[in-house]
């Protein structure tokens, strides 16, 4: 790199960024190896935790919760009163969802969730967050200009007479949205309804799919 040849003051940063994939790989393996040797990590533990978040936990779980709330008014009441407890009824909960709150969209109120300070996200119902949720663009824009961000970056226009409620997950409470049930879904089964519930609709940056998407 050129720093060595620069004859001036020290540059404002000591390194060249971003790092290469090779460098990140080497550093990660070094830590893994040391922690395996010291007894804090093991080959089967790596496989197990990765597999849980690749295969078992993801937005399909949140979709089940939403679909249940759409078909079962009593469950919906319990969900809005205490989402952690209600999700536990369906066997859903755990790490990064110890204190969950579910926010109900209505014709007059739309909710959208972010984390300006890091990337807090309700893992048990949505899985691990996508990069855009964790990257600086979303985290900086959403709290200041939610309508503009939703319109420009997510194609979602919200009329001015609909309230926008933004939830910045700055503590250990984890939020997700109960989107409005799409029209024309009166006859769908709970299982089919769950297929309409997208991850984005539970973050609040999208709508559920229309029933026509099922066919």
């Amino acid at each position, binding site marked *: 790199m050129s720093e060595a040849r620069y004859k001036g003051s020290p540059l404002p*940063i*000591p390194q060249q*960024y*971003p790092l290469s994939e*090779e*460098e*990140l*790989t*080497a*550093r*990660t*393996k*070094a*830590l*893994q*190896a040391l*922690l395996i040797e010291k*007894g*804090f*990590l*093991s*080959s*089967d*533990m*790596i496989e*197990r*935790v*990765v597999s*849980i978040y690749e295969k078992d*936990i993801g937005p399909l779980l949140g979709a089940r919760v939403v679909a249940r709330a759409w078909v079962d008014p009593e469950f919906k009441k319990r969900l809005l009163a205490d989402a952690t407890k209600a999700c536990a009824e369906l066997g859903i*909960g755990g*790490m990064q969802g*110890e*204190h969950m709150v579910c926010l109900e969209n209505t014709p007059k109120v739309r909710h959208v969730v972010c984390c*300006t*300070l*890091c990337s807090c996200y309700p893992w048990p119902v949505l899985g691990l967050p996508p*990069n*855009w949720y964790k*990257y600086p*663009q979303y*985290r*900086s*824009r959403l*709290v*200041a*200009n*939610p*309508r503009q961000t939703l319109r*420009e*970056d*997510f194609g979602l226009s919200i009329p*001015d007479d609909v*309230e*926008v*409620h933004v939830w910045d997950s*700055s*503590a*250990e*409470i984890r939020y997700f949205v109960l989107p409005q049930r799409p029209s024309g879904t009166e006859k769908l089964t709970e299982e089919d309804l769950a297929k309409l519930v997208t991850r984005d609709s539970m973050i609040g940056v999208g709508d559920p799919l229309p029933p026509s998407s099922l066919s």
Partner: protein
Amino acid sequence: MNGAHDLGGFHGLGRVQREENEPVFHSEWEKGVFALLFATLGNGLINVDEFRFGIEQMHPAYYLSSRYYEHWLFTIEKGLVEKGIISKEELDARARRYREDPQAQLPERKDPKLADRMAALIKRGAPCTRPSVVSPRFAVGQPVRAKNINPTGHTRLARYVRGKRGVIHKVHGTFVTPDTNALGKGENPQPVYSVAFPAWELWGWDSAEPNETIYVDLWESYLEPA
């Protein structure tokens, strides 16, 4: 600290970039770093507030230009070295080895009990709630002001709400205080509130969009009566 992680209201970072059909992990090293979270936090080597504070200490230019799991890698390296669980020298030596021989494999060691323990942790969670020790100072509906504090340590009071007035929306319960827990100064459990701020209070009438409320979760010590 007033760092680059405190992004609310920052301009000039560009539009949101979405990836179609994004996988849970993009590479082997991302999986590796993810597992390291459990090896450290899951084994109690580093607490969650120390973990976040470590990330905040990345150089701002590095923080803003790096991949997400790079943040985790940074804070895990830093935390383990600072706590003396590994030495900088052994870490550097090992990284050099894997850099020079990218085909070199990890040591193979199975530990089914450890794997089971982590799976149980995922299922059970690691609550930061604590038994209430005091009754909350503020009640739902009460106007409050977020304090103007500028600590160089860790805090979850974002700059964009400091000095601003809101209303208590909900009392969440009693939680560990990150500001002290990140510095090894104890858990100091205290009430956490959801505070509702109108957009115009945060951004001014010229910049705020209409008809918006921003809800921020704040510890009692961040607040004063308004």
